[in-house]
């Protein structure tokens, strides 16, 4: 007990020290003027070029600057972040590798009929909001990540309200979810390399870039800019769609696996000695 008190005192002193170290430069203006009045030059450049029809070699045809930065200007960064996301879910699933895709032993009934009906109605609403966020990612704040996270809520409340049996009964089995997820990730990769396909097949006069979205100075390749009168953001729309599908299925998979009944989950640690 005496040890914990000494440890707490040391920690509190260190916390106060760290806050002081951080606060003094902040007060002296390390984060530029406080509160910020003007934008940094880099932000001005991005905002100026994102939807600028007068300079079409630099624009993205997406009025939403955040989506344009995420999937066009810094598209490769986002690709690698998607890889991190993919690996984290794969790691979580790998811990349950012995029971993946199996039907659960427990036959739950779920909550009462009133709750189930109300949830069924609201689930449709949540899915619609999620997909609207995904598909309008190039026009309004939103996109694949956020819309996918919204739509993935349906799988959580479905499991809680209807019990886990609904997964075993429904057609969204483990294998199909995995298939959709991998197809979505292949889609992201395909959209990224479509611009360089002519170059890969020997047409060395056609110079283009991986992750190219709109027309550049050296070539005329471009994803759809405007359909009817709505800016499509070129490849941003496709990336948002595929990323949204990947996020929905990834979180659904993780939730399905975490919600396995305790008896079945214990199979995953069988053979290991208790205590080690």
């Amino acid at each position: 007990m005496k040890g914990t008190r000494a440890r707490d005192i040391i920690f509190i002193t260190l916390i106060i020290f760290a806050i002081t170290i951080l606060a003094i430069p902040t007060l002296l203006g390390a984060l530029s003027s406080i509160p910020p009045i003007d934008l940094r030059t880099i932000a001005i450049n991005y905002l100026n070029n994102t939807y600028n029809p007068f300079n079409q070699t630099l624009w993205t045809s997406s009025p939403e600057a955040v989506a344009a930065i995420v999937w066009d200007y810094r598209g490769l960064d986002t690709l690698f972040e998607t890889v991190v996301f993919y690996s984290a879910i794969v790691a979580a699933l790998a811990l349950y590798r012995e029971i993946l895709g199996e039907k659960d032993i427990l036959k739950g009934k779920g909550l009462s009929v009133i709750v189930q009906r109300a949830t069924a109605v609201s689930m449709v609403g949540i899915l619609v909001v999620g997909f609207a966020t995904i598909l309008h990612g190039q026009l309004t704040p939103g996109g694949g990540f956020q819309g996918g996270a919204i739509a993935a809520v349906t799988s959580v409340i479905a499991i809680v309200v209807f019990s886990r049996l609904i997964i075993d009964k429904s057609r969204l089995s483990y294998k199909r979810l995995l298939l959709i997820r991998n197809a979505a990730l292949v889609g992201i990769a395909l959209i990224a390399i479509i611009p360089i396909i002519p170059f890969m097949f020997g047409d060395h006069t056609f110079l283009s870039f991986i992750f190219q979205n709109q027309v550049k100075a050296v070539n005329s390749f471009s994803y759809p800019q405007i359909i009817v009168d709505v800016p499509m953001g070129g490849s941003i729309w496709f990336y948002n769609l595929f990323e949204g599908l990947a996020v929905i299925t990834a979180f659904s998979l993780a939730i399905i696996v975490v919600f396995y009944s305790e008896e079945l989950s214990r199979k995953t640690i069988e053979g290991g000695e208790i205590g080690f």
Partner: protein
Amino acid sequence: MGSEIQIAMYMTVILSLYINISICMYGVISKPNLIKKLISLTILQDSINMFLILIGYRLWRPGIVLQPPVLLDWSPTSEVLKQFLERAVDPLPQALVLTAIVIGLAVNIFLITVILHTYRHFGTVDMDEIGRLKRVVIVEETA
């Protein structure tokens, strides 16, 4: 006078975020319960995201046309683009936070599964308790 209050409020928010971050670090390091560590970690993630968004914030000053900071006109003239630049906030921290949140969520799910496995394995999520259990087993094996 008005700007002094604004600066003081802004500084209070930033300092409270610093305090939040350091308390969360204390929780991650000091608490032996793995669930408490996870809760501290999630609050730490959210505090840092908040801090990043706050850096991209921009003071609303008189003279700016009162409109949402999005581009409403889809066939803009250069005048409209200039006005948009005057009222837009910094999009870069938002782009960073956007992906950080989802990746944080995925990593949290992984941590939750690891903690669940730890619980099934040892019957407890207390790190001190787990250490004691392992020590007892080691002593039994070497004796």
